[in-house]
């Protein structure tokens, strides 16, 4: 069995309100807020990117894990906004935490599910006894084109997980994971393009709902689970509507979803999205609680995880800032500042 022995989250401090963006583009703010269920989103500072976010989350994960960084045998960073197209984010994270040397490392990209893909690969390396500890990170500083519907939600944040074989320091154990993958072009970004494109309503039924729904149902069947066997449900959160509707369709209650539903306050953190939801759940879960998490990556696929919370959560969760506390620690910026922070204006 593979367990989480350390987890950490990071959300940048800046927020822009949905209403501020809507106002700029002449939309009715309340309409947009209601339509998406997103009221504000996180914006990275000028000195933040996927690498710094990944590093910040990792430092918290290391603190909770209480291990020597040099014991980490693999680092995989999942993101669709790696600062370099060529030059791995993971190498910088490795140097920043002090685990360069014998280390397996690569960057992953699978739209918003690259972070959960990283977890699955680390699990395999541990199971195969190639490494003792592995670090999987999902982090993004995603961009939506100005005026595009994506702009209301595309945000920044990330989460990091240190995994090992189940032991007395386990925070939560991953009982099972599986994936469902097809070729479904609902959202993409071509090389050299600054902003992604998407298929509008095509991103819904045939994309998000089909993949997340199928993967989740496969997991429920495989593990013989009923909706009320689970304490917490975390789905990828492109907005607040999709995961809530998904949960309803699958027979889950709103209560099972609420704790992990960080999207309404920080937007869609892409590769960080479902993982930040998981950290928010771990921040409050009790030993023995059952969690089901299904990520979604456009293109398309969903990774589903069935997780049981372990005893060490009690002594480890308070070692670092909790996700919802980080979400509440914020400063608002206006649209003009946002355009500078996100390099949306042509400068000299």
């Amino acid at each position: 069995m593979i367990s989480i022995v350390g987890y950490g989250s990071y959300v940048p401090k800046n927020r822009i309100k949905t209403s501020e963006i809507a106002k700029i583009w002449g939309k009715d703010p309340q309409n947009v807020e209601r339509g998406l269920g997103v009221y504000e989103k996180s914006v990275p500072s000028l000195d933040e990117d996927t690498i710094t976010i990944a590093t910040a989350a990792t430092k918290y994960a290391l603190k909770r894990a209480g291990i020597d960084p040099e014991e980490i045998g693999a680092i995989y960073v999942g993101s669709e906004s790696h600062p370099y197209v060529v030059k791995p984010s993971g190498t910088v994270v490795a140097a920043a935490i002090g685990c360069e040397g014998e280390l397996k490392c690569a960057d992953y990209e699978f739209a918003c599910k690259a972070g959960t893909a990283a977890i699955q690969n680390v699990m395999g390396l541990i199971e195969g006894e190639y490494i003792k500890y592995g670090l999987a990170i999902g982090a993004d500083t995603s961009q939506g084109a100005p005026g595009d519907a994506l702009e209301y939600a595309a945000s920044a944040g990330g989460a990091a997980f240190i995994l090992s074989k189940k032991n007395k320091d386990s925070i939560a154990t991953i009982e099972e994971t599986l994936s469902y993958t097809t070729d479904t072009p609902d959202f993409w970004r071509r090389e050299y393009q600054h902003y992604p494109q998407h298929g509008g309503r095509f991103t819904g039924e045939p994309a998000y709902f089909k993949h997340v729904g199928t993967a989740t149902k496969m997991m429920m069947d495989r593990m013989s689970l009923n909706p009320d066997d689970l304490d917490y449900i975390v789905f990828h959160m492109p907005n607040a509507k999709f995961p809530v509707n998904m949960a309803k369709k699958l027979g889950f209650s709103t209560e099972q979803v609420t704790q992990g539903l960080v999207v309404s306050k920080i937007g869609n953190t892409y590769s960080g999205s479902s993982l930040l939801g998981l950290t928010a759940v771990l921040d409050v879960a009790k030993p023995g609680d059952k969690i089901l998490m299904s990520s979604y990556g456009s293109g398309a696929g969903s990774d589903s995880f069935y997780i049981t919370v372990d005893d060490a959560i009690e002594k480890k969760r308070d070692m670092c800032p909790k996700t919802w506390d980080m979400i509440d620690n914020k400063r608002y910026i206006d649209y003009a500042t946002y355009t500078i922070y996100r390099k949306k204006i042509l400068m000299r």
Partner: protein
Amino acid sequence: MSVPRFWREIPYRYRLIGSYCEKCNETFFPPREICPRCRRSGDIKDIKLEEEGEIFSYTVIRTAPPEFDVQTPYAIALIKLKNGPLIMSQLTDCEMDDVKIGKKVRMVFRKISEDGEAGIINYGYKFVLAE
């Protein structure tokens, strides 16, 4: 900035590795090859410095060189590290009015500068006000 010039300082800039003179029981940052007190090199070791400290002095920069211009106004501080030396660093994610001598700060890992749109990104330490 040339790449190797930046690359060779990575451990110090990313992780606050300083020097410690075992003879004088003193820490230094940036690292030194010779202890400025006893003028010897034999007893100098690398040491991981604490990532916490307090503001010893500060200023808010309003006029900056081109590579930092977009960040103005930004704060620079001399920080007395816990059990360690004074270090110069930028303060980030803070309201300028909240910066005061004596305030507690902690290290974060951030982008310091970029060599244009296409060049290398320089990362390193900055500090934030500790909540």
